[in-house]
């Protein structure tokens, strides 16, 4: 059954459809929360909050984007709100945009030719939340820089800076370890 059909049934209170959708995407939702907040207990709370929101607003889903993108957006928003409330989210200022060094980094350019996935994941989780959010949108959702900028409510230049810094941090950390 397609995800949108599952959501329609969830909107009517179908438990089996929810179980199917949950089983399919629980790792993505929990992983998104965990990588953004870098705290397992908090990630559990935010993951639960995400699924409850999915059920509550299942009838509002518009099929303009895939269901998983819609769910992950809910998860990212929950994390963003939590990080802001804990003062762990710092908005980019205008000066940073002036330091844009590259046009558009590809995923391969950012991550490099990593061999050890667990080492890469450890390095990613230590990045600042804004850089992780930008990385997620580029890698997980395959979004362009302008789409990432739109979702993160900042300029394309700011996204380029974030991704450039993420690449530099990852390289440094992977070389150190």
């Amino acid at each position, binding site marked *: 059954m397609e995800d949108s059909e599952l959501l329609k049934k*969830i*909107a*009517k*209170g*179908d*438990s089996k459809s*929810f*179980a199917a959708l*949950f089983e399919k995407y*629980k*790792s*993505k939702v*929990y*992983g*998104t929360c*965990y*990588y953004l907040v870098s705290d397992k207990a908090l990630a*559990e709370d935010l*993951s*639960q909050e995400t*699924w*409850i929101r999915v*059920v*509550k607003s299942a009838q509002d889903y518009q099929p303009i984007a895939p269901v998983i993108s819609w769910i992950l957006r809910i998860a990212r928003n929950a994390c963003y709100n939590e990080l802001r409330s804990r003062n762990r989210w710092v908005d980019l200022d205008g000066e940073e945009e002036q330091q844009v060094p590259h046009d558009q980094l590809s*995923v*391969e350019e950012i*991550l490099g*030719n*990593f061999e050890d*996935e667990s080492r*890469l*994941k450890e390095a*990613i989780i230590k990045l600042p939340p804004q850089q992780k959010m930008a990385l*997620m949108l580029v*890698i*997980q959702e*395959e979004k362009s820089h302008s789409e990432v900028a739109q979702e993160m409510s900042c300029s394309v230049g700011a996204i380029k800076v974030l991704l450039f810094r993420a690449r530099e941090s990852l390289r440094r950390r992977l070389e150190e370890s």
Partner: protein
Amino acid sequence: MKDIKNLFDSTPPSYHSQNILREVEKLLSEKRLQQRRRALAWLAVPALASFFGLYVWRKQESPQMDFLASEDMLQTISDENNMEMIADLDLLENLDTLEKWNGKDETGS
């Protein structure tokens, strides 16, 4: 690079999954209840419409029915009057007969 899109996937602990399923089930049962209420409301609409239609029809038909009823009543009344008249006539006829008999006696015929 393989499965790069799944780089951020992470399996949640099983107790956490059970918690979510339990919490969400409460919401889903509420949704099912709402669905049933909506379905009942939709069933009530035609029933109410039928009652309303019946009421309107009854309202439109009632003057005629009242008229028919009054006509019946008139007929009954007139029937009752006729019966009374018949009874009176019978009484008169009896009186006449009695008077005739009385007359006969008085005259001695």
